[in-house]
């Protein structure tokens, strides 16, 4: 060991090489190991590499022999294709010789490496190795490498040779056969060079099959079982090889199919069972059509006799080792689902399979914790119901329903009950020991089971609803709260299907739940009950909001329960359901408004009132306010709601004076978020009824004016007053974002309302911002939305405000200087000019516009953005330029159109130069499609484009590109681009071709 840390000198003889190899595999510093590796790699790649490899394989040390085999492989990979015939034969003979020797010595590691090296010979040698397995088998039988040529012509049946070999020699052949199938499978069969190799495999498979057959049929001892185990791996590799390559060559596949029966026999041998289960499951899942009906029948019989007893016992014992047994059953079930569904009286094909699938779901344990199989069993039932639903719904209406439907429905009813039992939450003493993995696993199971239930509901319909209602009422009656929770959870899953179906049968079906004592029971907080049960009951009110809306008699009980829950640990769920219920049932709840306002005021003093709950509940109340009529009725409740917000703002200011920054931030931002919630609540619902027969148009006019004068205006002023909170929280991005949200709530409205503030409010908010304002891009994007809203037909044109927004954007651009300094702000500023099209184009273009003098700086900023590295400002700038170049289809004045054209002509050479530099390699490949847009617009609209392109190509600023791109290539590119007038797809292809040539990269990463 003295030499371990010695410096690494180049070895001068084979003994030193051996020493170096041994040091490579000893613990050492990474630097030394790297140095040794470099030295050895240097030797491997040298012309003496072959000789060195051969000598090292004669060593007594296993690691040295391994390195020898590795060196052969490296040499073959590098020099294999250029070997002459004599060298190739020598290499093959030496490799076979060493394999025979090493197999005799039973050195598994080296043996496997030699198998890999021989496979590399098969792949890389320019000379065909026609019968590798026969050659190796004869050599092993002979105890030395035999010459390959006679082997090619030998008529000896390989099975005869195999009888003379011991188990280890058989295993050696299996290793080679396995590696061969695996490695050749990685070679593309669709090229002429490789086609011959794949054709050869069609012959080799016969020897491989004889070899595997030999291993499968000679079982018994420990060593022969090892051979069978290797044969299973080999079998899997050959089938994996055959699947894509022999789709249209049934002969090869038949040879492999003949092995299914002997391989399946391994499932009956306890020592081989585990491994064979994995192999068969893999094949069933990935290549079902490999199995013929008789094979599937055989597997079903084996499962019945050999797998079932182990599975059932393991399920009862909650033994984790049972997993592969269950997985096999599930895989076979999925593979034979047609038979399982359509032949319900078939003992092996259906009855036994369904029974076992039930047993998996019946097993004790919680999914995600000590029950892994239930989660996987869902895949089988998904396949089952998918097949059944296909059969029911894909046939014509006048065709009779399938005869097995009643049986399938009975099966599914049982599945539903078993799933429900599995979805029951664990008691506290179990769940308290759960980590996040178990909890997440259980939640995932419930979600997967939910999806399955929805599919089953398509088939079972009303009867499934009744099943859950009975379960709910029974659990409620017996006060089995966890069972109740699972039943409610299932009813929630089905809510959308139930609500959509407004038939009286369904309505009557769900009635017993809402008219039961459910909400009184769960609302009785003196009763001990899992919090999850109450939470799911709360969710139910959200899920069935539309039903409750149609049955207002259930609302008081429900809301009483929800408001009571607000002051408990269930506050978040309760707040969410209140918001959903009040939004849906707003019209029915207007009479309750005063009570709700009082309850909200009381709730604000509760410790559970936080940002989330406050936002949800205030939104809920605002929804009810929205339903009030006329507009004047909304004033008082809105004053009450705004008062709560102002109280928060006042408290924030007081905390600010006291220097408590944390509280200032929380209260200030919450106040703005609550304000947004009120705004959203007041938005007119999308499905509101519009009275087109309104006789008195004066009503509309009065409403229009209401919010701009008197009481209405007072509300708006109070809303705007809330922005004063920005004086103390304006440095927080969240606050700026929340303020923008408040402004946006009014943008979506088409009718005047309390939050439909004058556009000047948005403009003045933007004008107060600087480059240092956090979330400035959100402010700019809000301004963009304002312009878009006022670009619609019938909307008020806001020239003055749009001009002010542009001026502010120009100011930001000028202050920024370079777009890459703040890509977010740069993109948003450019977007402002993009939004001006088409109604406000004149603000950008007109010589009389207040920003006319700033136009050059804006255009230069956008040129800079195109040449910058930041993708988003670049895309925004490319879009604006495209719109500027393309003549607009909308009505704009001739003078504006003329001025646009003048601008494009003036900036054409600069813009073209920027685009060409990008195409010549300065851009990313992913940006080329965007760059083609303005290029296409130029080609289509500007006659001078060709001249500009030629100038750009010869300009000094044209980047240094790959030597293959000469002047002729540049000219050809210009000709192609000009010739493809308007064909964007082809233009993109040509551009990508030129780009790849300039960068010296591949034209495309696609195979086709």
């Amino acid at each position: 060991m003295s030499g371990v840390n010695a410096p690494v000198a180049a070895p001068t003889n084979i003994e030193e090489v051996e020493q170096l190899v041994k040091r490579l595999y000893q613990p050492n510093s990474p630097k030394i190991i790297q140095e040794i590796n470099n030295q050895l790699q240097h030797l491997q790649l040298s012309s003496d590499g072959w000789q060195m490899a051969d000598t090292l394989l004669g060593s007594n040390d296993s690691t040295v022999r391994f390195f020898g085999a590795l060196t052969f492989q490296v040499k073959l990979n590098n020099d294999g294709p250029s070997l002459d015939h004599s060298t190739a034969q020598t290499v093959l003979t030496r490799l076979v010789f060493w394999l025979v020797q090493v197999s005799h010595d039973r050195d598994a590691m080296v043996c496997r490496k030699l198998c890999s090296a021989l496979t590399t010979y098969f792949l890389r040698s320019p000379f065909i190795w026609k019968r590798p397995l026969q050659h190796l088998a004869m050599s092993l039988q002979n105890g030395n490498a035999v010459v390959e040529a006679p082997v090619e012509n030998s008529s000896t049946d390989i099975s005869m040779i195999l009888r003379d070999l011991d188990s280890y020699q058989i295993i050696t052949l299996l290793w080679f056969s396995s590696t061969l199938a695996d490695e050749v499978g990685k070679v593309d069969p669709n090229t002429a060079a490789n086609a011959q190799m794949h054709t050869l495999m069609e012959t080799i498979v016969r020897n491989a099959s004889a070899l595997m057959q030999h291993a499968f049929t000679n079982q018994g001892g420990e060593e022969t079982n090892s051979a069978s185990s290797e044969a299973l791996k080999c079998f899997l590799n050959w089938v994996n090889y055959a699947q894509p390559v022999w789709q249209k060559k049934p002969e090869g596949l038949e040879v492999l199919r003949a092995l299914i029966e002997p391989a399946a026999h391994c499932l009956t041998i306890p020592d081989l069972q585990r491994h064979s289960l994995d192999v068969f499951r893999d094949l069933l899942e990935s290549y079902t059509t490999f199995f013929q009906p008789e094979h599937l029948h055989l597997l079903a019989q084996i499962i019945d006799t050999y797998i079932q007893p182990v599975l059932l016992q393991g399920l009862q014992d909650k033994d984790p080792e049972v997993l592969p047994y269950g997985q096999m059953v599930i895989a076979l079930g999925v593979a034979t689902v047609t038979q399982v569904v359509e032949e319900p009286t078939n003992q092996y094909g259906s009855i036994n399979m369904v029974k076992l699938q039930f047993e998996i779901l019946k097993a004790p344990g919680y999914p995600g914790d000590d029950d892994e199989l239930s989660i996987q069993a869902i895949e089988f039932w998904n396949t089952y119901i998918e097949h059944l639903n296909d059969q029911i719904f894909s046939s014509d209406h006048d065709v009779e329903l399938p005869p097995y439907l009643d049986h399938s429905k009975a099966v599914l009813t049982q599945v539903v009950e078993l799933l429900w039992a599995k979805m029951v939450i664990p008691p506290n003493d179990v769940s308290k020991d759960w980590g996040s993995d178990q909890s997440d696993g259980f939640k995932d199971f419930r979600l997967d089971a939910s999806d399955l239930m929805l599919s089953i509901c398509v088939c079972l319909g009303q009867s499934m609803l009744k099943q859950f209602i009975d379960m709910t009422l029974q659990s409620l009656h017996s006060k089995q709260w966890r069972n109740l929770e699972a039943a409610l959870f299932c009813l929630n899953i089905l809510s959308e299907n139930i609500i959509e179906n407004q038939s009286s049968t369904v309505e009557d079906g769900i009635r017993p739940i809402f008219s039961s004592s459910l909400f009184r029971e769960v609302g009785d907080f003196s009763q001990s009950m899992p919090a999850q049960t109450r939470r799911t009951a709360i969710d139910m009110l959200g899920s069935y909001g539309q039903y409750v809306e149609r049955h207002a008699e259930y609302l008081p009980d429900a809301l009483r329960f929800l408001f009571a829950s607000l002051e408990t640990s269930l506050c978040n769920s309760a707040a969410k359901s209140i918001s959903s219920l009040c939004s849906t049932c707003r019209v029915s709840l207007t009479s309750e408004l005063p009570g709700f306002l009082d309850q909200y005021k009381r709730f604000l003093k509760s410790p559970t009132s936080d940002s989330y709950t406050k936002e949800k509940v205030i939104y809920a109340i605002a929804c009810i306010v929205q339903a009030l009529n006329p507009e004047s009725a909304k004033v008082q409740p809105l004053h009450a709601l705004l008062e709560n917000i102002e109280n928060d703002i006042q408290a924030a200011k007081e905390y600010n004076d006291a220097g408590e920054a944390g509280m200032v931030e929380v209260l200030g931002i919450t106040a703005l978020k609550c304000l947004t919630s009120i705004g959203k609540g007041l938005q007119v619902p999308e499905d509101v009824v519009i009275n087109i027969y309104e006789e008195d148009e004066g009503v509309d006019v009065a409403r229009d004016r209401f919010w701009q004068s008197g009481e209405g205006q007072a509300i708006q002023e109070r809303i705007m007053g809330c922005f004063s909170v920005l004086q103390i929280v304006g440095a927080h991005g969240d606050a700026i974002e929340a303020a923008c949200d408040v402004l946006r709530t009014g943008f979506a409205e088409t009718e005047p309302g309390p939050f439909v503030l004058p556009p000047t409010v948005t403009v003045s908010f933007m004008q107060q911002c600087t480059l240092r304002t956090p979330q400035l891009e959100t402010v700019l994007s809000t301004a963009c939305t304002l312009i878009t809203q006022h670009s619609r037909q019938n909307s008020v044109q806001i020239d003055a405000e749009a001009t002010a927004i542009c001026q502010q954007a120009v100011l930001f651009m000028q202050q920024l200087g370079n777009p890459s300094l703040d890509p977010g702000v740069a993109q948003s500023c450019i977007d402002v000019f993009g939004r001006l099209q088409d109604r406000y184009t004149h603000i950008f273009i007109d010589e009389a516009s207040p920003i006319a003098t700033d136009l050059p700086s804006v255009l230069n900023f956008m040129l800079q953005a195109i040449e910058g590295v930041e993708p988003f400002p670049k895309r925004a700038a490319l879009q604006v330029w495209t719109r500027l170049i393309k003549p607009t289809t909308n009505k704009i004045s001739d003078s504006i159109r003329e001025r646009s054209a003048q601008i494009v002509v003036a900036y054409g050479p600069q813009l073209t130069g920027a685009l060409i530099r990008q195409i010549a390699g300065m851009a990313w490949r992913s940006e080329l499609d965007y760059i083609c847009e303005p290029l296409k617009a130029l080609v289509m609209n500007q006659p001078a484009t060709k001249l500009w392109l030629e100038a750009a190509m010869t300009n000094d600023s044209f980047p240094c590109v790959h030597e293959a791109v000469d002047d002729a290539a540049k000219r050809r590119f210009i000709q192609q681009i000009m010739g493809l007038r308007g064909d964007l797809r082809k233009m993109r292809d040509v551009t990508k071709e030129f780009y790849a040539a300039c960068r010296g990269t591949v034209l495309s990463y696609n195979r086709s």
Partner: protein
Amino acid sequence: MATAAQGYYELYRGTSIGLALADTLDDLISSRRIEPQLAMRIMQNFDQSIASVLGEKVKARMSFKAHLDTYRFCDEVWTFVIKDVKFKLDNGQFVEAERVKIVACQSKEKQQ
């Protein structure tokens, strides 16, 4: 496992992560740090990995309602064009879109 010869769908190359990988590979080829053949192999590995990662690791789910405008099944690929789509996300949030095209391919690693 499926190999390059067996082939994986290339549809994820158009995603932002696929485009970013292509951009990076271009850089590596241009600067002669890798050969184009290796870049192609990396891209093929990406096809395999993204498909398995999306299949196995992504737990998020959503549901949607829409009007089915067009559907077709060609070369083992389903295409649906749906209109007025309302997506419901895991957290209960809704996202709306006027028109969505869904391209669905065989998810098994080894197509049968």
